[in-house]
């Protein structure tokens, strides 16, 4: 998708977390790099947790027409 480059997706975030942990585990990162990586890792973990949270609230079933109605109502409210 075109927005992959701009906003992180769940899978790119996970992949980046793995990379960060591998780098930290290697013990080669200096103090500054370690702290920066930890900071970045924390925000990515937070992002992933939000994504998982979004699909953990309980299965919601909608019929397509209901969704369309809801979306149209949302648009008119916004307008």
């Amino acid at each position, binding site marked *: 998708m075109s927005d992959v480059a701009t906003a992180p*997706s769940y*899978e790119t975030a996970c992949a980046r977390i793995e990379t960060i942990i591998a780098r930290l585990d290697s013990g080669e990162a200096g103090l500054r790099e*370690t702290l920066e990586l930890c900071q970045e890792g924390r925000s990515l973990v937070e992002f992933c947790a939000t994504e*998982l949270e979004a*699909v953990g609230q309980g299965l919601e079933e909608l019929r*397509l027409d209901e969704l369309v109605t809801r*979306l149209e109502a949302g648009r008119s409210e916004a307008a």
Partner: protein
Amino acid sequence: MYDVPDSPAGIPGSGLTGPWPVGHYAAKLRSRLREFARVQVFGEVFGFKAGRAKVWFELRDASGALPCSMWRREWDALGIGELADGAQVVAAGGCDYYAGSRASSPQFSFTVTGVRVAGEGDLLAQMERLRRALYAEGLTEPQKRLHRPALPRVVGVVTGEGGKARDDVLAGLRRRGWAGRVVWAFAPVQDRHAAPAITRALQDLAACEEVEVIVVARGGGSLADLFAFCDETLCRTVALLRVPVVSSVGHHTDHTLIDDVAAVACSTPTHAAEAAVPVDCGAARAALHGHAARLERQSRRAIVDRARTLARLSRAPAHHVAKHRTRLHQQLRELRASARRGIAAGERTNHASAAALARNGRAAELGTTRGGQRARLDAAALDRAAATARDRRRRDLGRLAVALAAHDPQRTLERGYALVEGADGEPVTTAAAAAAQPELSLRLHDGSVRVRPHGGVPSEAG
């Protein structure tokens, strides 16, 4: 009328003939069926199986079906090989009935004696043509190039409203631990209205921006049942949708065209749901907790380890000084102990030497005393011996002097004798020798006088 001696009584009140032994009736049935006109029939082949003696298949069309069998030897002689489902054939033959027995089941079949393959079945042929066209146009690729989100929040599903596939999709989503939003787009999935309705449902779902992936699911059925999913318009629509489509149509042996153009084709609706949500949410949550914990641990360790190192480094100089101080103290103690040991050993040696010296002194003193005494004794003895020797030598000397004086020629000369000496001073003792000398010296006790011999006669008395 047959004679049936052991026949049981019939059903009271029944107006039908019999009861007949079933084998007898089955044999009659076979005879009657074999009397049916032998014909040619055509349809699509399904479930072709080749046994050791016979081959079996069904001939089907939209309105009916017929179980068929053919001797394996005759089938092999045709050289057709195995028939795929859906292949359209013309079969020549007639009805037959295997009457069975106590140990085997009866079976009706259309016994085929000749087969002509009428090309691919209509449906299969249409499908194959369209498949080739879709591949040629590259329409099987666009869906596969689409990004499929690992964790979609909204999943669209196109399926029959009352079908089992609906429950299977939900079961698959639950198995993933996924509890997001499912948007149902119900559509008929097997009549002639199915394809346009499914196409519309797909388009509508794709038009909703929040739908991230679409599952198209339908349970198993005949090729004709599933043919809606081979519709050209439907397939072209799927190929060009912006949203990835996961298809699951029919059983795993069925292969419809939507499977070719979809991003992913699955064998069951449950698998399709799992493919639509690739992440196992439960496992992902656990993994995420693990990642978070590791990050915290790493972060803390990075600081704590360095703080420890710093503390260790800052302690190092004092530690070294203390270490050296301890070593110096130790060495000092050792030095003192060593000195004490040395002094004690020296004192012991000195004492021993002093004792030895004292012993030696005493011994020397004793020796000196004894020596003095002995010397004094020796001196007295020597004095005595010397006096004795002196006296003896004095007496011997006197005696010798007397003897010597007795032998002195001077004394002889003094008594009136003279000594005759030659010119060379040597004594001349014979008259001949004196006569031979030109000059003689006569030595008297008070001096010498020179004389000349004048011949001479040797004295007889002599």
